[in-house]
């Protein structure tokens, strides 16, 4: 657990960046553009397919890639908490009214809730899709250097969006560290003890307000420092991003063909319209 880690169920950006900067895996040497194309294709595939088997296979392949790179799998499962919560929030209620063969019934006063096979499939499919997306995203983050991400942001987004993004990405680590430090200070002074909602809310509100105020103070200082070093309103990220190699292009080409075959031939695909 790094010093900046605030909740154990939220991905630890320090740890993720450490893996990325260490470049200890084969995948770190793959072009960021190849991995980015892979991300787009993964998202396209899970948007197009509703087939549980395909989602299951894709999830296992991506989990395998993640684990083979030596990344922490236990932590990954803890980081799944919020994506799982979001999916359950969305379809957890809808699943109970989904038509199909009943697998479980629950009588609540005058109402009878029935969970059908289609309801279960719906939850599992959407869960798998969310887990595929988050696992590949983290794999991408943990195998791509900070400088390459910055350069991609600079090339992909228009001004001033790229400027805000680049500065925010740079400040993010400072701000996370500052937030973690403030919470450590609050806890060491008894702030971690459960109080009433009002007191708890007040403590957290003051910490959050302090984070914002300190962030703005720092922003003003950084801005003046940047001006004194010749900042003219354009923050550039000129790092050369490695181009996709032949093998990378082949992998992407094969992935495109696989998606085309799945869309054309496998049942329960075609979430186009």
């Amino acid at each position, binding site marked *: 657990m790094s010093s900046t880690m605030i909740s154990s169920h939220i991905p630890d950006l320090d740890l993720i960046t450490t893996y990325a900067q260490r470049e200890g895996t084969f995948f770190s040497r793959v072009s960021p553009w190849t991995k980015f194309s892979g991300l787009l294709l993964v998202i396209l595939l899970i948007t197009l397919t509703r087939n549980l088997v395909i989602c299951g296979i894709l999830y296992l392949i991506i989990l395998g890639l993640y684990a083979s790179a030596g990344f922490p799998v236990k932590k990954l499962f803890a980081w799944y908490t919020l994506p799982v919560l979001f999916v359950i929030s969305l379809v957890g209620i809808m699943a109970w009214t989904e038509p199909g063969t009943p697998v479980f019934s629950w009588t609540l006063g005058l109402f009878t809730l029935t969970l059908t096979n289609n309801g279960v499939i719906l939850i599992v499919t959407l869960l798998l899709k969310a887990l595929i997306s988050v696992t590949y995203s983290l794999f991408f983050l943990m195998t791509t250097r900070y400088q390459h991400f910055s350069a991609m942001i600079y090339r992909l987004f228009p001004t001033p969006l790229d400027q805000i993004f680049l500065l*925010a990405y740079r400040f*993010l680590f400072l701000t996370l560290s500052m937030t973690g430090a403030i919470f450590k200070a609050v806890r060491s002074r008894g702030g971690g003890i459960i109080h009433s909602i009002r007191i708890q809310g007040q403590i957290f509100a003051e910490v959050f307000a302090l984070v914002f105020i300190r962030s703005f103070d720092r922003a003003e200082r950084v801005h003046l420092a940047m001006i004194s070093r010749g900042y003219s309103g354009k923050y550039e990220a000129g790092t050369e991003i490695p181009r996709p190699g032949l093998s990378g292009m082949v992998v992407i080409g094969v992935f495109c063909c696989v998606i085309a075959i799945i869309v054309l031939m496998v049942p329960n695909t075609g979430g186009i319209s």
Partner: protein
Amino acid sequence: MAHIHLEDGSFSLFFVLVWWAAAIILVGIAIYLIRAEKKPDRRKITLAAFCTAAAFAIFQVSIPIFGGVHLNLTPLIGILAGPAAGSLVVLIINILSSAIGHGGWGLIGANTLVNIVEVVVGYSCFRLLKSTIPAFLPRAGIATIAGLLCGNIAMILIIVISGVQGVNQSPGQILAGLSLIAAVNMGVAVIEAFITGLIVAYIGKVRPDLLGEEK
């Protein structure tokens, strides 16, 4: 959380593209408004960047109320950064959030639209209520509730229009299920409104200039 982040695979490709296009148009308008300023204030960009970083960092914190609550603080972003820069800030937060699995990449468009509604309504209410309710705490609280309520309505509309992939229910049945989710979200929104009110009151005491108001 006061609203949910839609995950990848929830919508069909058509609606993924529709909501992305709508978000790009709104973000494009925000970029145009910032670029069209007669005297571009470079400091605003740095402040928006720190606002993004602070909001993203705070989102990571689980508040130990009712088993753990995460705040989105989108209306607060609107109050601090304004609607134009705020729209860019929420887009970036959605991209960063997608990178760690809090919302899907394909659903960034839909999630950003919901957040832009919260930013714009939060900002507008906070400014419009200035003469009626001068005190920061109730004004920011009301602006937050209004922002999150409209955000929830936007979320419901987006889901009802798009439908959820694999759900074989009528829009009416989907609406009934979503109303329950929205009711839970609004319960959390009350906590967020209370905390946002306290945050704005604190900022108003220490740095009222950040709220665009004199001491």
